[in-house]
């Protein structure tokens, strides 16, 4: 009888507890959730969610997945308009300024301790700060560069990956004689990664996309010359057989079969896909390296900094407090390490680069660290950026095929962007 009464009391207590639990609505891309298609990624998020629930029985996580592309931003803005925003959300770093502008994200000022902020790369902090206030905590970044297989490099007699563009073009002749394409970089129109690969070189040459007021200047003076130079490099590579013209219809994923089959010596890729590539071709675990883009005129490429970040959208104080607990938990050094290691995505905390065996010992990750320590830049957080990105990448096919000269491509991109910019300014 006593046991029965105890059981009923426990049941009542748990029911009462559940009644007061905060229902935390979390909106996350599938990759960063227990619903990830990458099984280890799903497992680590499930473990972390369970751990959080165990430590916070008064908070009940109710997660939903959403798209990472522009449709994701559209969903968030629609949710804001219909007053159905989640409490916590993972956002693309590129969206932060726009979401703050629409009052979707809540400031983390006063919540996020300064000493913890000091563990992040300054460029990362800058990317998540609007008007001097942090609005999100980035937990990973992806860096783009050229992935290559050292074994193939050795087989063709190359001692190191060419650093200058001239050396690269010379090496491409040797590779071509052996039936290998030297480089494949995505060059598909309207494909953001295609623009990102170009931007590293364009910024490395000293180009600027927009001025301090956010007006497009990529076609003016030296900027225009630098962009024409980038187009010229793509054209020269294709004309010399160092790059297949097929790239004009390919995104990053489509390049992989050429790399796996040994047809391409190097491919433009993001670090975020490394684990996936290792799982698709296990031989790559000991035979994969990354190199910065070979640059002309002794210049160095600039890494495009981007990544996903946890943020809070809840305005209600209780929900906001619960959301902060969740964000703080997921972005703690320990848990961030677990997610970064499992997904193979580069960390943005300095401490993880030093303490994680994987990131501090793995040869490939060490190469990424060298790039990470170099110059990084974020894409301009202005609405005209998407038009610039589209206009720049849309010209690649015509430039590569030789139908349009680099100078004309810059002019055409300018015309497309300025028409849109004038329209936007008149709003």
């Amino acid at each position, binding site marked *: 009888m006593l046991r029965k009464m105890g059981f009923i009391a426990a049941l009542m207590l748990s029911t009462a507890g559940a009644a007061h639990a905060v229902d935390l609505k979390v909106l996350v891309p599938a990759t960063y959730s227990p619903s990830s298609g990458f099984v280890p990624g799903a497992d680590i998020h499930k473990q972390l969610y369970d751990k959080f629930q165990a430590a916070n029985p008064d908070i009940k996580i109710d997660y939903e997945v959403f798209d990472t592309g522009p449709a994701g931003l559209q969903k968030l803005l629609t949710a804001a308009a219909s007053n159905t925003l989640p409490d916590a959300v993972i956002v693309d770093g590129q969206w932060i300024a726009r979401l703050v502008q629409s009052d979707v994200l809540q400031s983390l000022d006063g919540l996020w301790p300064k000493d913890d902020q000091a563990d992040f790369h300054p460029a990362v902090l800058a990317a998540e700060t609007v008007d001097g206030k942090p609005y999100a905590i980035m937990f990973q970044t992806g860096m783009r560069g050229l992935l290559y297989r050292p074994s193939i490099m050795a087989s063709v007699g190359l001692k190191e990956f060419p650093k200058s563009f001239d050396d690269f073009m010379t090496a491409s002749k040797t590779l071509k004689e052996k039936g290998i394409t030297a480089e494949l970089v995505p060059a598909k129109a309207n494909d953001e990664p295609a623009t990102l690969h170009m931007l590293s070189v364009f910024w490395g040459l000293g180009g600027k996309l927009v001025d301090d007021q956010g007006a497009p200047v990529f076609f003016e003076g030296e900027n225009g010359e630098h962009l024409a130079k980038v187009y010229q490099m793509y054209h020269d590579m294709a004309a010399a057989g160092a790059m297949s013209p097929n790239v*004009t219809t390919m995104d990053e994923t489509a390049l992989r079969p050429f790399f796996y089959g040994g047809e391409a010596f190097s491919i433009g890729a993001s670090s975020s896909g490394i684990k996936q590539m290792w799982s698709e071709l296990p031989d790559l675990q000991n035979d994969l390296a990354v190199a910065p883009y070979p640059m002309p005129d002794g210049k160095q490429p600039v890494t495009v900094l981007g990544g996903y970040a946890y943020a809070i959208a809840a305005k209600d104080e209780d929900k906001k407090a619960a959301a902060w607990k969740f964000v703080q938990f997921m972005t703690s050094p320990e848990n961030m390490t677990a997610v970064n290691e499992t997904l193979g995505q580069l960390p943005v905390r300095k401490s993880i680069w030093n303490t994680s065996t994987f990131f501090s010992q793995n040869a490939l990750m060490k190469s990424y660290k060298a790039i990470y320590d170099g110059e990084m830049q974020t894409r301009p957080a202005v609405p005209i950026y998407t038009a610039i990105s589209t206009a720049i990448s849309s010209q690649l096919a015509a430039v590569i*095929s030789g139908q349009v000269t680099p100078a004309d491509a810059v002019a055409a991109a300018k015309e497309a962007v300025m028409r849109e910019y004038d329209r936007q300014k008149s*709003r």
Partner: protein
Amino acid sequence: MSYETLAQHPVKIVTKTRKRRFAVNGYFFFILPGVAIVLGLTLFPAVYGIYISLTNLNLGYVGSSFVGFENYIRFFTAADLGLITRNTLSFVAACVILQACLGLAAAVLLEQRLPGHQLMRSIVILPWVLPSVVVGLVFAQIFGGSRLGIANYLLSLFGIGQMSWFSDPLLAMIILIGVCTWRGIPFTVIILLGGLQTLPRDVYEAAAIDGATAWQRFRYITVPLLRPIIMISIIMGTGGALNSLDIPLALTGGGPGNATELISIALYKQSFFQLDVSYGASIGTIMLIVNILLIMLYLAVLQPKRRNDDA
């Protein structure tokens, strides 16, 4: 019924009127959910889309305002309008003509009841049951430029070098048309086969007795009698090709560059890549008008056939 009689039975008439009114109201009550769903899911989005097309709503910005026909003017003066129109017209025309010709040929062959025709009917319909996105992705793999691509592998068996299938604008468009036609033929076959089975046998028998050849029977009996059905399949095929997004997006994505960009892809890119929802809505409204015109044409074609059937 005379007035006298009416005066003798007033209660009965009132009861009948009430019953009829109740019956009408009852039917209305029962169809109301259906009407509400249809209006809510079709009419409202269409009207709202038209409204959005008259604003400058862009998800890259906060707020929006009424701009009249600015988005339509922008569309009709866009630099790439010529390219998109040319691509769309050539794509739609090629798909529709090929689907109609090949579909008619396949339907006539299947109607001959040759050995194995039942199995062939099932096989012919197979492309139609495959999800169109899967069709796009599979053909993208087949024509992948890598030597791992099936098309290049087959060429290599004959000693032919690798082809860059999607890097040539013309070749990319030909592949796109080919794949969409392959996917659309079963639909035409089903419609035409149904039409062929309704044609009167005695006309063919009379023609055969008069010494008409197979080609003459096809040219002077099958085609004229089947003309309304052929027209319907052409009109429906035109609508299908015009609104086609899944295969073009998965196969070429409008590339190389913008060489295979269709109006449907332009709408998608404007709305979901550029977040320029109002401009996307204006393109959608233009497509809606074209579709309405196609439906009117469809009804016009169907109407004489119905009158003939009724007669």
